[in-house]
């Protein structure tokens, strides 16, 4: 599903990704690990088509994420590490997602409910006024409701309490079939039960790639 070939990305003189090669296939669940500045986020952003590579390429189901942005993003769900301060109300945000990605609002509400988040009680609140945990739960609910083949989570449980983490793991287990799950994380123990592959990055290179 995701094929990264000889990918190099530089910011000025700093090489953030140094000739990366990797492939993520259906039913793989990957923990992408490494110290700060190892290149994890740059790799994820390159997969999402946010960065123009200096050399090499990324293909998602055979499509280039920059040239075929819509075809690629149709198949990707993304949850960032820190929920951004979106000023739209929850209702407006869901409207944006419903129109742009054809995601059923009721399905978002269903998954939010599973995460113990009552959307209807907060529907007219600005997204940024929700608590950190509530924001994260909503973003997770959106990512699941989108029914993508590729789900990318950047430290998804950072703002969640233990109960919410359990709900999150349970929902992921129910939705992992035929998908690529990519977790950017510093703590393997948090996703150990979910992943079957571990990639460790350092200084823009993949230094280990284990399947288990």
């Amino acid at each position, binding site marked *: 599903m995701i094929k990264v070939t000889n990918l190099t990305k530089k910011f000025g003189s700093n090489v953030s990704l140094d000739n990366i090669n990797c492939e993520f296939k259906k039913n793989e669940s990957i923990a992408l690990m490494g110290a700060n500045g190892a290149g994890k986020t740059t790799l994820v952003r390159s997969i999402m088509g946010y960065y123009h590579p200096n050399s090499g390429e990324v293909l998602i189901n055979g499509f280039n994420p920059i040239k075929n942005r819509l075809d690629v993003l149709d198949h990707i769900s*993304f949850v960032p590490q820190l929920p*951004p301060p979106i*000023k739209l109300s929850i209702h407006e945000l869901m409207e944006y997602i419903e129109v742009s990605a054809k995601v059923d609002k009721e399905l978002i509400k269903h998954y939010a409910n599973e995460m113990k988040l009552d959307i209807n009680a907060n529907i007219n609140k600005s997204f940024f006024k929700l608590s950190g945990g509530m924001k994260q739960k909503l973003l997770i609910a959106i990512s699941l409701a989108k029914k993508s083949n590729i789900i990318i989570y950047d430290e998804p449980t950072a703002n969640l309490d233990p109960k919410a983490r359990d709900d999150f793991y349970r929902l992921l287990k129910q939705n992992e079939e035929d998908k690529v799950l990519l977790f950017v994380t510093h703590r393997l123990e948090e996703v150990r039960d979910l992943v079957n592959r571990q990639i460790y990055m350092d200084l823009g290179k993949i230094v280990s790639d284990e399947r288990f």
Partner: protein
Amino acid sequence: MKNLLLIAYLDLKESIRAKWFVVYSLVFGGLIALFFIAGVTESQVMGFSGLSRLLLMYIQITIVILPIFILITTVRSISGDRDSHVLEYMLSFPISLKQYYWGKVIGRFITVFLPVFFAMVIAVVYGALKGAAIPWSIFFLYTGLLFAMSSAFLGIAFFISSFVKSSEVALGLSFFIWIFLLAFIDIALISLMMQERMSSGLIIFISLINPMEIFRVAAISLFDPQLTVMGPVAFYILDSMSQTVFVLVSIGYPLMLGLMFAFLGYKIFEKKDLV
């Protein structure tokens, strides 16, 4: 098209809720209210009276404050979203960059244009209720000029927003552009004119490529072209081209300038790293 309108609609809703929009609307609405309270419509100076005088005063103040208002409120539109990682999340959905960018431009244009326009409409309605004669030609000219001026500075703001990485730099650049167009160009040109290093025609041409200057001259072009009232640039221009042609240029040129900058901004937005 659906996505474009959705982005415009959401940006409009978000802007209307923002504190800057309240201040923005109060400033322009407050100006009109202040003029009525101060009895501007009853006074007569240099032949301007009633609503004409009120609209002229309104437009002269607008020349100074509208560009900076548009620049500082709009320049963070994309760079602010980039800064705060909002762009990263919003663009993780299948929406084209073209729809996102132009949707933001349309939404923001409506937000910045409507308050200045409605302030004028309120003035005209209130003036009519008080029995004043409505200067329709001035009203339509100023509507066109405000539309063109808003386009010009909105385009410039989106252009800056597309390439600047941080909001602070974007704000700094906005202030520089505003003060440069407002004062420095005139000071430099007056100095050149006094030293007689360049022909006066060239100096006036340079002056007129400044959208704020063309706006200023056009705003007084319907009045009696007396040098004492209008200043040398306006006098020279209205002496050398017909009023109708100049009015069309003064609306068409800033409009094209705004579209050109907005388009350049889009090209940069499309070609650069998004986050």
